[in-house]
């Protein structure tokens, strides 16, 4: 999948020097203002979601009724059940109140509260996306560091080329290919890994169950990592390239430090800060990848739930999952922002 290319440029806010005594108070104030900003964004998401799902063309009830036999009376009943016969302003306050109480409504398809459905699906998604993220970050940062340090070398050219290809590959296509080659098996090669769901039908207990889930995770994780790690590599590489030409690196070399020490102790820590932040700033991208990967490999997570909601379409479920995903992304971004501010003195003065 392709992400906006600005992700390649490390955060350019760094400038000036911090006034140390005031730094702590400044951080707190910064965190509070960021939190306020995040709350405002979340409020806007809730308001936006309300209008999106109600004012855009298409009557929700008629959409629900698509392809189903429903009499006008049934349609009216459905409207009443959803509160759609009330004035818009009342609907709005109902919606905001319900959302704040975490009442996301009842799924049309499952006939169950949306929140319960989300609760069930949260675990698998965290497992898949978490594992994928950890692997992608460590691999991307490691390879990006080495590519950037020996920039222009064969390793660098190979890494950059490979990540540009991976970056252009649609996530779902890569998933399909992996499924065909490693899941089903092609020609003489047998299928190596299961590619449907999170566990076998006759899943064993105990440690064997862990192994079973792990083998089901291989293909989805591989797909997610391949697509996500490419951009981490590129970000880390360009971030390190900016550090390599800095004076302090020259000084470190002039002191006679070994090349490895210059890299590990001087250049990498500085390059790491903007990169790690960007990793979390672009978490929305990982979410998009997770939706696609979960859909292909029928991984019973949030992404697949959202996909089901879109394809039915089940608007209550779609609205609930959309709200949750968006709010989670906003919270992660804000945390990344604040942590960055705390650990990097260069942005504190700005």
């Amino acid at each position: 999948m392709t992400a906006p290319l600005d992700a390649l440029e490390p955060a350019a806010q760094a400038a000036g020097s911090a006034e140390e005594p005031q730094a702590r108070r400044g951080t707190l104030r910064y965190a509070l203002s960021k939190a306020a900003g995040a709350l405002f964004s979340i409020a806007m998401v809730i308001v936006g979601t309300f209008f999106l799902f109600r004012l855009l063309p298409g009557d929700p009830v008629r959409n629900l009724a698509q392809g189903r036999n429903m009499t006008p009376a049934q349609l009216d009943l459905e409207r009443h059940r959803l509160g759609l016969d009330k004035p818009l302003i009342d609907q709005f306050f109902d919606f905001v109140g319900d959302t704040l109480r975490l009442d996301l409504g009842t799924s049309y398809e499952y006939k169950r509260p949306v929140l319960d459905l989300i609760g069930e699906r949260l675990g698998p998604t965290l497992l898949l996306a978490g594992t994928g993220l950890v692997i992608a970050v460590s691999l991307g940062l490691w390879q990006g560091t080495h590519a950037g340090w020996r920039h222009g070398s064969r390793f660098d050219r190979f890494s950059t080329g490979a990540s540009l290809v991976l970056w252009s590959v649609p996530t779902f296509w890569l998933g399909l290919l992996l499924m065909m080659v490693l899941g089903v098996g092609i020609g003489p090669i047998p299928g190596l890994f299961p590619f449907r769901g999170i566990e076998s039908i006759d899943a064993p207990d105990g440690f064997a169950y862990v192994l079973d889930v792990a083998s089901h995770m291989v293909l989805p994780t591989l797909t997610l990592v391949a697509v996500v790690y490419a951009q981490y590599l590129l970000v880390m590489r360009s971030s390190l390239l900016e550090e390599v030409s800095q004076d302090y690196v020259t000084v470190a070399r002039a002191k006679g430090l070994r090349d490895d020490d210059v890299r590990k102790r001087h250049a990498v820590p500085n390059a790491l800060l903007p990169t790690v932040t960007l990793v979390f700033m672009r978490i929305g991208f990982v979410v998009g990848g997770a939706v696609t990967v979960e859909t292909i490999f029928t991984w019973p997570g949030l992404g697949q739930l959202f996909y089901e909601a879109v394809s039915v379409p089940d608007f209550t479920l779609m609205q609930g999952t959309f709200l949750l995903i968006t709010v989670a992304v906003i919270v992660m971004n804000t945390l990344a922002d604040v942590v960055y501010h705390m650990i990097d003195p260069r942005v504190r003065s700005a």
Partner: protein
Amino acid sequence: MTSVAMARRRLALSRFWADFRRQRAGVVGLVILIVAVVLALVAPLFIDESVTSVVTGTGPKWAAPSLDYPFGTDESGRSILLMVWWGSRTSLLIGFLAALLSIVIGMVVGITAGHFRGWIGASLMRVTDWFLVLPSLVTAMVLAAILGGSTFTIIMAIGVTTWPTTARLIRAQTLAVEARPYIERSKALGGGHWHITTRHVVPNVAPLLLASTTLEVASAIVTESTLAFLGVSSNKTSWGTMLRGSYDWGAPTQGAWWYILIPGLAILAVVMAFMLAGRALEAVLNPQLRRAS
């Protein structure tokens, strides 16, 4: 426009072309792009929409690539080659128009936010940041699902979710341009907001816009195929809907590698071509980048 200005522009353009030609990867990308666009444009001279119809698919089902069907056939005997060719029209059309929409919104918001620096600029940037945080694929899926699948809504959904990066880029560039002395001169001579933004800022950000449009088209094509694969499509044959079909009909388990490989390779080739051309453009237009990579 005076002839002096014309001559200067022509000179700048030829210098730009000379620089671009030196970027080998960029030229390769450009050639692939031209071939792809020309093929898509001339497709109606040779084939028509019936190649995508299940009714007229008369070949054998799931046929492996052969002389008759160079890229094999799908579950109802349609030629993959012809479908990919015809599907390129939808994929490229949506890619171009969505990127254009995204760039136009981004440019207008970016220049406005950079030009009016008071509360207008600040609130515009807040809106931009808000859109930037939204997970774009998920938002586009919701938009497309609510608006219903048509080529127009897919374009809207992609355009509306991808403009913020352009807006940020253009705002930064606008700020840089407006800090230059000739803007002050223009103001002193009585140039209004409209004059300054359209006569001075736009020409200065235009090269940057060209580069980011190229990259934006690449990402729009991928997004379109992903949306189509996830079931919210324009109901016309595109590379994304073909891959959706291959998944729905179980091509991976059927071992029909051609059904998966060919449309995907088409996406990959075009997207890579846009990426290469876009990166080359960036490298030519941004000397700092040229030094770094």
